[in-house]
Structures are given as structure tokens and as C-alpha cells.
């Protein structure tokens, strides 16, 4: 494998700040927003976004939650059994504007599962999707509203997102499988 | 004077050196080299070992009554393919072999089939119910000349009844073959009681249930000066009791099955009911103690306890499965594996425990003689160098409940000669009609 570094701490911070501004702009402020991260790294990114909001709009405490989608996936028979993660949504999402947050948008199946999972929790007014990286190859009619970086990639490449809170460093790499 | 029949070339007699054996009619006519073989069928037996035809003192032929499991014909075919020329048929048929009529029927079925000499064992008690003595004298004086009596499958647990039986059979030099199992201590028992049973949650069968009965019976045999045979020893403790009794001069003989010489209780781990047997498989220590005891003569013989069951009796949950496993076809291989390959036995020892001594215990003069000039032509030729995975191809009986399927075993019976004719040639069973005709010819003289 050869790994190419795509983003590091300053890049990640920069794009998250931009996304935060875009969200505030489209929402016309911080009112009614709920950030729901998709475990594991989506939750971390959602927390970072919430922190950035506070620097932009002092006093804005935007609720952050975790939305596990494992039990809603359509590929549970294609892989070894997946571990689930906790779902923790601290406020009612009824009538709110939910920003779903994930690290990488790929086939769109995870987001499809997230929409179903969210439906079982309540009925938001608006749902938007924010991702750090969009690598293309959609298999469902899903697109992100806020994208940190568009990264066209080949199927056999791996996009690897590492975040300091979980992995000890901030880095996004693209791993090229080298055929023997 | 009948014509020469077989010239067996280059066979090693027991542990001895290679030689030729010439049979004539149903006796061995000559042993040596340069024998006149005019008209004889030549068997190339180089590399094979010649044993006196094997004798099984403990076979369940299931007929009459349980013909879906085995018949006298199919059971003796299994015997032949395993190298046996005589089997003692246990009494737990339906009707039970507790009258002269039933034992004579079994005898006649064996004679008609012709694959092996069938000696019926008579029940000790009527219907194996442990209440009243069966007609022991009538069975002894019948055409079947029963000498071995057993309620096998059940224990003669009533001490007074056991004493009377031991005394009664003295008048015709009979022997009581006891299935030693204290019934109260083994109610609902499923496997040997110990570490494995505790883990598997199967009701335990304590060693003491066997050992206590053996201890009682050797003391009874001593007291009434009779002869006792103990079936299928399974524990190290039973060996100690027999050793003590023999040292004391008590007239007791003991048997062990091939499976108790090779398999241990851990086979139950998968709840594969092929390993469910009575008495149960025991600990590794017990297996080793049984081998030692067979090697030092404390245990006199190996007997198969061949117990055929239809597949539905084994393809089920352990608790619902029948006890027992077939053993005739595999016995010699298992004895080779557990006793010869381990260096505990010579092939002469194999002849002793699988032919000579069981014939003596059962009072069967026509079998179990050393291969010598004038001895009956009851001969088994085994290839000791063969080693392969044991499969259903090796089975000749009606049932397939062998615990050895899929296990690597040495040795293969290549020829079995019974009453002078071959029942097995080149490891293949000779056809039923041919054998029946040969047997008929022998009977006519």
C-alpha cells in the first residue's frame, strides 16, 4: 500500500470552519439546529463543528448527538457481523433542523440507513448532510449539502480519516492498493 | 480323505516365522515348506499373519426380534469380514433366549448361514427380568449345548439370584457372564461420571456402579466355588478387583471390548451418539489401565459387544439414543492399534485373547486351537501393514453405528477360513448362497 496525505490538522480545521459558516448561512443562524454524527468519526466531527459554532456565534450551544445506523444497514450479510455503537440523541429532533455528519460519503448507503434510523426517533423539519470528504461512487440518489473536500477516487482506493480525539493525529490519506 | 483345499503360502503364524499351511477338508493337513499342493487353491500370504479363527464371546445378533438392526446372517457376515469364525450370541433378543426353543433356533440360523459358528448364550433369568432363573439346564442339554449364561444389557443385581445362578451352572460346567452395573447407581445414566459429564450436563455413570458388582460377584464365586466371567470391564478399579480376585485363586475371567481399549469419554463432547455405549467410555487413565491389564493377563480376552442399531437410534439427541456400537468388523484393527502398535502385545497374544481363551471360556472345542497339524481349519489371515481411514465400506453387517468411521486404523483381514472353506477372500465377503452351500456340504459330512 502507498498512502498519500490529503489533509492534515490545518486543512481539516479550515474546511470544518467553512462548513460551519455555510450551515449558519443556509439556516440563517444557529436556531433549531441539531448535529447528529454517525459513529464513530462522524460524532467527533459533529463535536468539532459545535465547538466552531461557539466561536462564530458566542453563546450558541448547539446540541450534538450520536446516531448509530448499524441496525438499519442493508449490507449486514456482506461482511462479518458489525459491532453496533450507542445512539445518543440528547434532545428531541421533532421539528428541528438536523445536520447529519459523517467523515466520508461513498455509496450513500450509510446515509440511507441514517435517514431510516432518524425517522424512528422523530420527524425533523429539515435534514442536511455534512461530510468531510466526498469520494464519489454513489449507489443511491443521495448528495451532501456541505462537503469539506471532493476527492474523486478509484474503487480499490481506501480513504482513511484519522482524528486526534480517537486516533492521536489528524490526517486524511488515500491508500492506493498496489497490485502485485 | 478329502482333497487338499488351500495352500497358504508364506504366512507368519502368530509371532512365529513365515511358513506354508495346507488345509484338507476342514482340518490343517500340513505345515512347512515344499508341501504337496496338487489341486489346492493357492493363497499368497506373504506379509500376512495367520491367526486361529477369531472367537467373539460377546455379540448381539439381534435375531429373533430386532431384525431391522441385525440378523444371524448379517451379523455373521460382519463377523467373517472381521476375521471371526465363531460368535457367542447374547440372549437379549425378542423373545429372550431363555428357553431351549429359542437357543436352538439361533443355533440353526447360524448353521444355515454358514459364515461362522454361532453359539447361543442363554439368559440367566426369565425374560432378563432378574426375578426367576431361566431354564438353564434345558438350554445346556439342548442341541445348542449352552454353557455361557448372561442377562447382558442388564445386570443380575439381586445377590441371592446371582449366587443361585453361579451354583446351579456348576452341574454342567457353565459360566455366568455378568454385565456388572448396579442399577440404582446408574438410573438415567448417560456417560461416565466425571469431569466431562459434569461439563456436558449428562447424568453420570460412576465407576463404583461397575466395581461394586464385580467385587460382590467374585466373592460369591469364591464362596460357592463356581466360575464367573465378567463382561466388558471399563474402569481401572474393576481391573484392581479382578487382579485381587485372581491372586486369591478365585475362578474368574474378564473381558474388555476393543472400544474401551481405544476410545475415551471425551468423545462425548460433541454429543455424537455413536459414542454412547454401555458400559460408557471412560477416562484416558482407565483406557491405559485396561491395556496394561490385558497385557499382563489380568483381563483374559477381548470381546466386541457388537451392538447393532438402526440409524434412527443414533441420529438423535444423546439422551434419546440407544447404547451400543458395532465392533466385529473393526475389532482386530483396534486391538492391533491399541495393543500391538503400542508394543504391549505380540501376535501370539492377539491369538490368545481373540481366539484361544474365549473359545476355552465358552467351552467351544472346535475353535481356538493353535494353528498346527490336525487343528480345525479355522484360520484368519490379516495384513498388518495396511493402514487406512475406516469407512462404511469395511462394514458387512446391517447397521452402521461404528465409532471408528473416519478414524485411521491399521490392519485388514484378507482371508477368513471357516470349516475349511473361505468366507472372506482377498478382503471380500463370499456370497451368501455359496457359503450356505458349503456349510450344507460340511453338515452332510
Amino acid at each position, binding site marked *: 500500500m502507498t498512502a498519500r496525505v490529503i489533509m492534515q490538522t490545518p486543512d481539516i480545521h479550515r474546511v470544518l470552519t467553512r462548513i460551519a459558516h455555510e450551515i449558519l448561512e443556509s439556516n440563517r443562524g444557529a436556531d433549531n439546529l441539531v448535529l447528529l454524527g454517525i459513529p464513530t468519526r462522524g460524532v467527533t466531527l459533529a463535536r468539532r463543528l459545535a465547538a466552531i459554532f461557539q466561536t462564530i456565534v458566542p453563546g450558541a450551544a448547539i446540541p450534538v448527538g450520536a446516531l*448509530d445506523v*448499524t*441496525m*438499519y444497514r442493508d449490507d*449486514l*450479510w*456482506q*461482511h*462479518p*457481523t*458489525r*459491532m*453496533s*455503537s*450507542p*445512539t445518543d440523541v440528547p434532545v428531541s429532533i421533532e421539528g428541528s433542523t438536523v445536520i447529519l455528519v459523517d467523515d466520508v460519503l461513498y455509496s450513500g448507503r450509510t446515509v440511507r440507513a441514517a435517514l*431510516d434510523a432518524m425517522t*424512528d*426517533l422523530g420527524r425533523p423539519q429539515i435534514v442536511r448532510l455534512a461530510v468531510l470528504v466526498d469520494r464519489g461512487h454513489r449507489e443511491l440518489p443521495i448528495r451532501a449539502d456541505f462537503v469539506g473536500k471532493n476527492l474523486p477516487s478509484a474503487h480499490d482506493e481506501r480513504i482513511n480519516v484519522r482524528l486526534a480525539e480517537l486516533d492521536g493525529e489528524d490526517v486524511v490519506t488515500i491508500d492506493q492498493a498496489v497490485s502485485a | 480323505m478329502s482333497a487338499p483345499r488351500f495352500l497358504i503360502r508364506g504366512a507368519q503364524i502368530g509371532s512365529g516365522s513365515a511358513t506354508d499351511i495346507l488345509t484338507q477338508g476342514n482340518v490343517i493337513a500340513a505345515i512347512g515348506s515344499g508341501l504337496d499342493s496338487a489341486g489346492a487353491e493357492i493363497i499368497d500370504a506373504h506379509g500376512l499373519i495367520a491367526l486361529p479363527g477369531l472367537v467373539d464371546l460377546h455379540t448381539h445378533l439381534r435375531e429373533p426380534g430386532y431384525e431391522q438392526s441385525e440378523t444371524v446372517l448379517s451379523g455373521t457376515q460382519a463377523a467373517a469380514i472381521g476375521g471371526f469364525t465363531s460368535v457367542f450370541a447374547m440372549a437379549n433378543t425378542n423373545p429372550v433366549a431363555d428357553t431351549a426353543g429359542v437357543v436352538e433356533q439361533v443355533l440353526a440360523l447360524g448353521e444355515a448361514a454358514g459364515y461362522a459358528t454361532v453359539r447361543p448364550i442363554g439368559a440367566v433369568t426369565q425374560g432378563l427380568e432378574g426375578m426367576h432363573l431361566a431354564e438353564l439346564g434345558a438350554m445346556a442339554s439342548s442341541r445348542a449345548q449352552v454353557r455361557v449364561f448372561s442377562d447382558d444389557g442388564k445386570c443380575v443385581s439381586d445377590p441371592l439370584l446371582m449366587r443361585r445362578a453361579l451354583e446351579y451352572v456348576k452341574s454342567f460346567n457353565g459360566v455366568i457372564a455378568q454385565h456388572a452395573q448396579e442399577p440404582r447407581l446408574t438410573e438415567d445414566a*448417560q456417560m461416565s*461420571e*466425571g*469431569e466431562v*459429564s*459434569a*461439563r*456436558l*450436563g*449428562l*447424568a*453420570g455413570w*460412576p465407576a463404583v456402579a461397575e466395581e461394586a458388582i464385580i467385587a460382590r460377584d467374585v466373592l460369591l464365586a469364591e464362596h460357592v466355588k463356581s466360575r464367573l466371567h465378567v463382561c466388558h470391564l471399563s474402569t481401572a478399579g474393576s481391573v484392581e478387583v479382578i487382579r485381587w480376585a485372581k491372586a486369591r485363586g478365585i475362578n474368574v475371567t474378564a473381558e474388555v471390548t476393543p472400544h474401551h481399549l481405544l476410545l475415551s469419554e471425551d468423545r462425548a463432547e*460433541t*454429543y*455424537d*451418539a455413536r459414542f454412547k455405549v454401555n458400559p460408557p467410555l471412560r477416562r484416558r487413565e482407565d483406557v491405559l489401565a485396561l491395556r496394561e491389564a490385558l497385557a499382563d493377563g489380568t483381563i483374559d480376552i477381548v470381546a466386541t459387544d457388537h451392538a447393532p442399531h438402526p440409524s*434412527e437410534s443414533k*441420529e*438423535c*439427541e*444423546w*439422551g*434419546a439414543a440407544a447404547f451400543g456400537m458395532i465392533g466385529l468388523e473393526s475389532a482386530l484393527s483396534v486391538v492391533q492399534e491399541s495393543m500391538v502398535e503400542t508394543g504391549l502385545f505380540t501376535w501370539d497374544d492377539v491369538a490368545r485373547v481373540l481366539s484361544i481363551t474365549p473359545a476355552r471360556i465358552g467351552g467351544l472345542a472346535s475353535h481356538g486351537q493353535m494353528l498346527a497339524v490336525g487343528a480345525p481349519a479355522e484360520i484368519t489371515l490379516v495384513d498388518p501393514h495396511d493402514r487406512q481411514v475406516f469407512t462404511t465400506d469395511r462394514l458387512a453387517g446391517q447397521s452402521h453405528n461404528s465409532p471408528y468411521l473416519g478414524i485411521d486404523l491399521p490392519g485388514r483381514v484378507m482371508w477368513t477360513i471357516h470349516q475349511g472353506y473361505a468366507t472372506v477372500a482377498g478382503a471380500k465377503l463370499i456370497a451368501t448362497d455359496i457359503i450356505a452351500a458349503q456349510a450344507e456340504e460340511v453338515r452332510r459330512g
Partner: protein
Amino acid sequence: MRHLLSTSELSRDAAIDLLDISEDMAAVADRENKKLPTLRGKTVVNLFFEDSTRTRISFEAAAKRLSADVINFSAKGSSVSKGESLKDTAQTLSAMGADAVVIRHGASGAPAVLAASGWIDAGIINAGDGTHEHPTQALLDAFTMRRRLHGAGSRGKGLDGVSVTIVGDIVHSRVARSNVWLLKTLGAEVRLVAPATLLPVAVHTWPVTVDYDLDHALGESAPDVIMMLRIQQERMNQAFFPNPREYSNVWGLSNARWIGLPATTLVMHPGPMNRGLEISSAAADSPQSTILEQVANGVSVRMATLYTVLTGNREVHA
């Protein structure tokens, strides 16, 4: 996990994963919509050769919350009680397209026989077999202990150093066996207390300490958890102990013994209880008692079990 037959097959990681998934399943039970779509289109058969309404309902609720179709196949009054073999029943269920079979059977090892047979391709979940094991009961017991002891911080944790005393009919108890192996795997220290008649003779080979005397055992050090096992009616007249009164006096969790325990000691019972025999009402109904939680947690643990057995790429797992 292809089947769940015995807790002895579970590694520490696999056991903790199951408990963690159970936590996520338990969270679903707290929301308004208690249903997950996970096992839509899958068929779970509850094959009960023994009556056990409690266990069957628990599995049924678990399967339904995961959107599986549930077929209850009770042996009573069916062809099974008319002598149909396990093999024939299994082949029938296979033909019906069962993806998982939850089996309760009076014969030890029946689930293992089913799993190894080739008669049916379904995942097999042991819901109690004879006197062998009852793995989901042990999992729910461990789950209950972990929640009480670690609360919200349970995730990822075992039961390291937790002292558990199991009292009663060990030799005939599938609950005890499954608990002994699982608790050991999770790092707990297990003590068994019973008259010698109700312990396996080979109990010294188990990873436990043994005491015949309950007062002595409790006097040495109060356990973190005391689990009382049910005394079955049919044991009463088989000389395992002289009579129920003597059993209750010596091995029951009486009021006096319960009052002597610290307020932190959890009181567990797999149910159904014989109040006044192995456990006093005061102990059973006390705040330390987890008996009702055990019932609720049972559904979560069985959801996790069904999820783990029914999902996953079998080729990868095999």
C-alpha cells in the same frame, strides 16, 4: 457467530461484544418506537420441546423487535410428542426456510446435535438444554451485573474481580453451568455453595471455589453478587436433601441471611422463584434484587444474540 450453544465457546472479546450490543438494544427499548428493521425477511423458529413460557416470550419479543418473522413450534400436542424425531422436525423447519432456530430441549446437547447434523442450515441458539447450558440466561445475568456495577460506563468492560456466589442445585442447573464459564471468562470470581449431593462429583475441575456451608461462605466475605437457584420439585424425593425445611434452613437466602448482607450485594434469581424455600420474599423484593431487571434485560440480550447469529457473512466467519 454461527450458533450460540455454550458460553464456554465465547472468548472474552466475543462476550463483551455481545454485552455491548445488548446495551444498544436496551436503549431501543427505552424509546417510543421499540422496533428495529434489522432482521426483516428473516425467520426465527422458537422450537420448544419443554414448556417455558418466560423464555419463549422473551425470545419472541426479541425477534419481533428486530422485525424477524417468528414461528412458535411447541412440541406439546404436536407431531413431536407423537414420536417424531429431532431429525424430522429439523428437516421440516429447514424446508420452511428457518434462518435461526431457538431450541429448548430436555436432552443435554440437543442444540449441539442440531448444529452439527447437517439436517438444517439455520443458526442454532440454545435456549436451555437439559442439565447442560442456558447461555442467554448467563449473558443476561452478566449484563445485569455489569449494568448495576458499572452503570453508564459498562461498555467494553468485563466483570473483573467481581465475586459471585451461586447457591443451590448446581448439578442439575444449566444456568449454573453457563454462568460458571461466562463469569470466569469475564474475570469474575465464582463460588458455588450447595450440599455435596447437588454438586457434580468433578466440581473440583471447574474454575470455582466450593463451599458446602452458606453461612460459612457468606461469613468469610460478602460477595458482590449472590445468585439463588431454583430447587425443582422433582428433587424433593430423590434423597438429595432430607426435606425442603432443612434445605431452606441451611441453603436458603432467609431474611436473617439477607439482612446480614451489605446493601451493595446484588440478589439474583433466574426465576421462577420458590419464595420461602430458596429465597425469602424480603430478599426477592429488596432494592438489591435484580430479578425484574433480569427479565427486561433478557429481551435485550436475546436481541443481541439473534443479531449476532443472524447477520454476518458466513463464509468469512466459518
